[in-house]
């Protein structure tokens, strides 16, 4: 699968675009699934997980949706620097669709950042 930049202009304006963001997540080795990512009302991509291998693609089907308030929240959660439950309680994050899958993925990202070298935040 060819990783592509996410579709949001806000994402693309980041110093490091999300092109080729793929990696290996130790906390996701028993999980396969996709999670659509959205900042406020703007879709920004799909996080694809395949038994530990992760990548962010521009498009794709996903049974679950992650909506966050801002780019820093998204980067923090995907990089394991902001706990998803904390973001949820602060009103910065919500999940729709397959909650169990979304939570497993988000909790798994807390184990270790899958983004070898630069993380989405860097």
């Amino acid at each position: 699968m060819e990783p592509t930049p996410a579709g949001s202009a806000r994402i693309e304006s980041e110093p490091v675009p999300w092109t080729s963001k793929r990696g290996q997540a130790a906390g996701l080795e028993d999980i396969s699934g996709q999670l659509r990512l959205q900042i406020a009302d703007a879709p920004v991509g799909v996080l694809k997980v395949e038994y530990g291998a992760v990548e962010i693609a521009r498009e794709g089907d996903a049974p679950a949706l992650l909506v966050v308030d801002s780019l820093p929240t998204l980067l923090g959660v995907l990089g394991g620097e902001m706990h998803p439950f904390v973001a949820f309680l602060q009103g910065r994050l919500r999940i729709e669709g397959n909650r169990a899958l979304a939570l497993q993925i988000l909790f798994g990202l807390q184990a270790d950042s899958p983004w070898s070298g630069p993380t989405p935040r860097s």
Partner: protein
Amino acid sequence: MALDTISILDGNEFVVSNRQGDIEAAPMAHHGLFLDDTRFLSRWVLTINGRRPILLSIDDTSYYRIQHFLALATGDVYIDSHLTVVRQRSVGGGLHEVLVLANHGKEPIDLEVRMEVAADFADLFEVKGKLNKKGELYRHVAPGDRLTLGYRREHFRRETQVTSSAPAELSEGALTYRIRLDPLRLGLQAIWRTHLDVFAVMDPGRESPSAIAHRADEELRPELASDLRGWIEDAPKVVTSWQPLEHIYRRSLVDLAALRFRKPILLGAMPAAGLPWFMTVFGRDSLLTSFQALPFIPEFAASTLRTLGLLQSRAHDPFRDAEPGKIPHEVRFGEMTAFEDTPHSPYYGTADATPLFLILLEEYERWTGDRELVQSLESQARAAMKWIDHHGDRDGDGYIEYERRNPNGLENQCWKDSGDSIAFADGTLAETPRATCELQGYAYDAKRRTARLARDVWKDSVWAAELDRQAVDLKRRFNEDFWLSDRKFFALALDGHKRKVDSLTSNIGHLLWSGIADDDKAAHCVTHLMGDALFSGWGVRTMADSEGSFNPLGYHVGTVWPHDNAFIAWGLRRYGYSEEAARLSFAMLEAAELFHHRLPEAFAGYRREITKYPVEYPTACSPQAWAAGAPLLLVRAFLGLESIGGNLIVDPVLPATIGRLEVLDIPGPWGRRDAFGRARTDLTASARRRPRDPPMD
């Protein structure tokens, strides 16, 4: 709960008021409307013409609604009132109150009816710790419409919105009605009423209040009444010649229904642990309550296993005392958790929830035959076992031990989690890391049970054989390393220097439940459990009165805990001490009868000879999930109910006072079946059986 308060609840939402129905939060009065660990109402005080009505009586026959019958008294000695005041209240998405006034006099009366309102949005930890808020409170009055009380801290916002069906003068601190009330003799239209809605709004920016519809009739929350009827009808029926047991059983079912709650993060309804301080997910409490309830309400176990499996840690996280594979201890939803002032998002500071997760998983499969769920949790089970063997065993000595990594975390990460619970016989506190004995029992039981699942469900015979081998080795080592040969019981723990913590405690009863004790050593433990130092006459104390730290009012060093006793009774059955199990179980039920059929979280450990009534523990939670579940496990112990190979096994041993006991429509792989037992005149002869192996068919 304090004796001068009264509560209604629905899951993790609850209202605590005084007996008149007023909410007046103060440092020593933990009143309020609480939802998700936040107090949405801290003041809700009714006055009429500047005076507070006095209480006549309370109708609290439903857990989610209550009626306070009041009167505006005019005399000092006699209640010479012409004004009836009724407050009908229910909880759900906030608070709904119908205020009803009726004039029994001959002339119209002019009244100023005032409801004072305030919300401090205190986090439950702020209530307990008397801490100050860090954000900003605000108020807003929409004339003729609603009063909004709000709180914000960065993105975190909560609001309380108050509306009234009758026109009211709204101010920032009260709703005021000025009414002329005609005599009731003029007709029912003279009755004045208003519907007051208090909406707890979690996300004011997005969420519209989930209004409870105003109802002209007086049936509050009819959907809950219907749900409760269904819940009780689905559960097995208990029929017995000792009537109090039927009441106790029904009370347990109602309390467990009341404590069910659902959240977006939970995969099904789970039991909240206890009112008022523990109305949230607790790993240990949910697992043990689900175990107790399995033959009666298997749904709890399914939700608990799915949810705790979902929340199982996948990370090393010292702040949350988490390591991969660990099952959570506590999840909170309030502001302090949101800003990581506390680590409950979730907090993983428990060493027993992980083996208990495996124990419940195997027991669940026995009682339901639901292999699909077991299949779906295989990776979680493997991760849990890996935690037991690696992260749980911090120093590689083959035992689970704990020591907090978050300095604000729990010092004791076993069920006796107060700071003074793990002490030597001379009262000296044990140093950490601490390896309490029951943790090793749970690990042993978890290995044996997981071996069966590995063999029968996951088809991994190699892993199954390895787990069996580990269990045998653990049992052998434990019986050598924890045994106090001079006192003839198992040490409470090994401390940080591997010294045996030599207090006599109820923990040894859990070793019987788990099956780790050698038969000869178990016999000594039974003698201690039923001896005067541990057994108060009402139940087994958490600590024997012979020990240096004993205190009959000490939370974990002398009080009697019903759930503890239920598992001890079940452990006695497991080793064949059925007479002792029946004696202990019946004593606990006698206490329940005297607690108006509801066992509290804990009660005082005084000797029965000095008090005809068990003495309440001042701050015990009630209702409390595993206390509510205790009678269910006691009933199971009386009848010796087991599910083995898809068959219901019944092996009754009853005390003489319970002459006959039937449990009808027990669900299981067999569909629904009945169990029946009668007391034998020669209980002693029939009860003493050979110790038997744990049922591992």
